[in-house]
């Protein structure tokens, strides 16, 4: 297990290699990237900020919980902070396990817990020059409705 909050670009392939084991027949890689549109608004970039000390503790706790729940110590999570361009990876999670179900479930658990409790925030930069902190608890605007 390894978790980190980093300021450099994330290397998903390196994380894949880090969790690879000959005993593990399944490896799952999750990559979260900066999207060009949110709630109908054109996004040009994203700024991530964290309560670093607590975010590192929570990330480490999530990796430990994934190990205990799904029976694999081969879990690596990296989250990037700072200003990111469109398409750049903000988070990479790699999990390997002897079998695919546990590998998928461990990766899913890790990203869902990360989004639920790790103190990281993002501020979207919009095409019109404005910036706004994203609040996932706020109801989506009308523009986001299908």
């Amino acid at each position, binding site marked *: 297990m390894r978790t980190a909050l980093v300021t450099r670009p994330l290397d998903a392939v390196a994380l894949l290699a880090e969790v690879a084991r000959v005993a593990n027949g399944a490896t799952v890689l999750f990559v*979260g990237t900066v999207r060009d549109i949110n709630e109908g608004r054109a996004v040009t970039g994203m700024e*991530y*900020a*964290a*309560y670093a*000390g*607590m*975010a590192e*503790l929570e990330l480490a706790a999530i990796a430990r919980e994934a190990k205990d729940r799904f029976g694999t110590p081969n879990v690596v999570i990296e*989250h990037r902070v700072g200003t990111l361009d469109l398409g750049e990876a*903000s*988070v990479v999670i790699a999990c390997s396990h002897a079998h695919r179900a546990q590998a998928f479930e461990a990766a899913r658990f890790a*990203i869902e817990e*990360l*989004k*639920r*409790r*790790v*103190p*990281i*925030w*993002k*501020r979207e930069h919009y095409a019109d020059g404005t910036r706004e*902190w*994203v*609040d*996932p*608890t*706020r109801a989506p605007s009308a523009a986001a409705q299908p």
Partner: protein
Amino acid sequence: MLVTRDMTVTVLLFASYADALGRSSLELALPAGATVRDVVAGLASLPGADRLPPAPLIAVNLRYASRDQMLEPGDEVAVIPPVAGG
């Protein structure tokens, strides 16, 4: 005789909450035996606090804390806006 003395805790603010209060940290003087609930009440009187929700998440010394958690002098208290990692 029981001696009680005031204490000071550091309160950290992040993201939209830092913008609302116009700063990223402050010192709050509290009576001995104060709890997280007292910090939340203390924040409410600050300029810009009307832009904070009435019951924000609080962490003490890097861990999520309940309203009843007692504080010690020098504790690091953080007011945690809705998280948005990933």
